[in-house]
C-alpha cells in the first residue's frame, strides 16, 4: 500500500523539474514534502495525480499505474488552481463529489462547510484565496480517500482556520489512517504533524526519513569562536553564524565529546531544513 515514483524525470521544455526521482510514500503515514519554491514539490504531486505525465519513469499507486481509475479514485489532490468549471457553485461541487468518491460523506462536508463558515452558495471561482483553500480542504477531508495530497493546503488561511484544519486533519488521520502527503512552507507548523519527511531540492530528493531521525541526527552547538572552530573540525557542518566572539553552528551527526564552554541544543525540523539548504547552497 504505497505511492511509488520510480526513476521519474519531468522536463518542461528545457527545464528539468524532476531529475530521476525515486521515492516511496508509504500508505497510512503522514509525510511532509519539504522544499523551496521551484524545488519540484508541485510537479511531483501533479504527476502522482495524473495531471501531467512523466518524461521518463513510472508512477504506481498500490501497484497500479497512476493514470488509471483504480489509482486515481484513491486519491484527492488539493492544490492552488481551480479545476472546477466556471460558474460552478460550492454546493454543486459538494453534491457531485459523492458520485465520484465512494467514501464521500456529504453530511461531513456540510458540517465542515458550516464550521469554516464557507458560503455554499458562492461560485467557486469567486472565493478568496483563503476560502478557495478551505473549499478544497473540505472536499479533501470529506472524500475519505486513502491518499490525500495537499499542496500548500493552508495558503491564505488565517491562524484560527489553520488550527482548525490541523486538528481536523489529525482527527481524519486517526480515524481513517489515510496516507497524507503534505507540502508546505510553514514547516514549523507541520513539523509535529507529520511522521515522515521528504526533502526535495532542485528536482532531486535530498532526504527521505522519519522526522525523528532527521531531527535526532542533528544538533546546534554554540560557544566561543575558537573552541567552536576546534570542535567543528571534521564534522558535517550544515550552517554557521557568529557575532562578536561567539559562534553558533548546526551540525549533522552525534555531538560526541563536548568540551566545556560549548552548549548543545536540539534542532527543530524547520531550522534543520534551513541549515540543510544552506549547506547545499554552499556545495
Amino acid at each position, binding site marked *: 500500500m504505497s505511492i511509488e515514483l520510480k526513476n521519474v524525470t519531468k522536463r518542461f521544455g528545457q527545464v528539468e523539474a524532476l531529475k530521476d526521482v525515486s521515492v516511496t510514500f508509504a500508505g497510512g503515514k503522514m509525510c511532509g514534502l519539504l522544499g523551496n519554491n521551484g524545488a519540484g514539490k508541485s510537479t511531483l504531486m*501533479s504527476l502522482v*495525480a*495524473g*495531471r*501531467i*505525465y512523466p518524461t521518463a519513469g513510472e508512477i504506481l499507486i498500490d501497484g497500479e499505474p497512476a*493514470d*488509471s*481509475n483504480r*489509482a*486515481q*479514485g*484513491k*486519491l*484527492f*489532490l488539493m492544490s*492552488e*488552481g*481551480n*479545476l*472546477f*468549471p*466556471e460558474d460552478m457553485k460550492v454546493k454543486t461541487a459538494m453534491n*457531485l*463529489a459523492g*458520485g*465520484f*468518491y465512494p467514501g464521500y460523506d456529504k453530511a461531513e462536508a456540510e458540517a465542515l462547510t458550516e464550521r469554516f463558515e464557507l458560503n455554499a452558495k458562492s461560485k467557486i*471561482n469567486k472565493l478568496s484565496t483563503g476560502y478557495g483553500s478551505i473549499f478544497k480542504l473540505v472536499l479533501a477531508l470529506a472524500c475519505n*480517500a486513502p491518499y490525500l495530497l495537499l499542496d500548500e493546503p493552508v495558503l491564505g488561511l488565517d491562524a484560527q482556520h489553520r488550527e482548525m484544519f490541523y486538528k481536523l486533519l489529525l482527527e481524519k488521520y486517526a480515524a481513517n489512517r489515510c496516507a497524507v502527503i503534505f507540502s508546505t512552507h510553514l514547516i514549523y507548523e507541520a513539523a509535529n504533524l507529520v511522521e515522515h519527511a521528504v526533502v526535495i531540492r532542485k528536482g532531486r530528493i535530498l532526504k527521505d526519513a522519519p522526522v525523528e531521525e532527521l531531527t535526532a541526527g542533528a544538533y546546534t552547538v554554540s560557544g566561543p569562536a575558537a573552541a567552536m572552530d576546534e570542535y567543528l573540525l571534521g564534522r558535517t557542518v550544515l550552517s554557521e553564524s557568529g557575532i562578536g566572539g561567539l559562534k553558533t553552528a548546526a551540525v549533522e551527526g552525534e555531538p560526541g565529546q563536548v568540551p566545556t564552554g560549548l552548549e548543545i541544543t536540539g534542532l527543530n525540523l524547520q531550522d534543520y531544513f534551513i541549515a540543510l539548504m544552506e549547506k547545499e547552497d554552499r556545495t
Partner: protein
Amino acid sequence: MKALFRYRLLDDLKSLAALIAALLLAPILLSLMLATNSTNSSMTINGTGAFSTIWALVIGIAVLRGDLRLGNQFGLSRRSAFWGSVLSCTAAFAAASAILSLLTAILQVIYQSDNSRVKVMDIYQFVYGNSAAGVMPAWDYVRMACMLFALCLCFGFFGMLCTMAFWRLNKLGKWVLGVGMGLFLGVGLPNLANRLSPWLQRPARILATNVWALIAFLLIWAAVFLLGAWLLARRAAIKSAAK
C-alpha cells in the same frame, strides 16, 4: 465515470432544451405574425439542421476541457474523463436528433392544411425528400434523425478537436491555426473545390442523392476528429483555467 456522464448529459440536455425552445419560437412567432398580416405571403422555416449542427459544434468546443479538468479533480483517469464526456455528448446528440426530427414532423402536420402559409422544412427534406410536399412519409423522419445525428457527431467532435488543438498549442501555434483555418475555409477550400470539381461531381451526386452515403461520410470524419481529439487529450497537462 457514470457520475461524469450523468453530469455532462444533464448539462447538455439543458442546453438542448434551450435550443429547442428557440427553434420552436420561430414557427410560433411566424404564425402569429402571419395571422395578423393579411397579405398572401408564405414563409418557410428552414433551419433545424443548421442550428443543431452549430449547437453540437459549440458543445464540442465548450465541454471537453472543463470535463477533463473536473474529471481529474474528482479522481477519474484521463481516459474515463474523456470518454465520459464524449459518450454523454453523443447521447445528447442522439436525443437532440430524435426530438428535433419529431418536432419537425409534428409542426409539419400542424401546418399541413392548404391555407397554411407557414411551411416548416429542413435541410434533409430539401435535399433528399420531396420539398414540395408538407409532410414526409414516416421513414423519412427516421432518416432525417440519423442525418442530424451524424451531422452533430461530425461537428461536435470537430469542436472537440479544435478545443484540444488550441489547448495543446502555444501562442504562435494558436495564431497560425486560427488564421490558417480561416484562410483555408474562406479561400483555400473554395479554390480547392473548384480545382477538383470535375472529380468531385460524382461523389457529390452520390452524397446528394443517398442520405446514407452522406451519413457514412460524416461518420468517417467524426471518427477522425474524435481520434485526433483523443490523441491530443491523452497527455495534455491539466492546470486550472486561465482567469
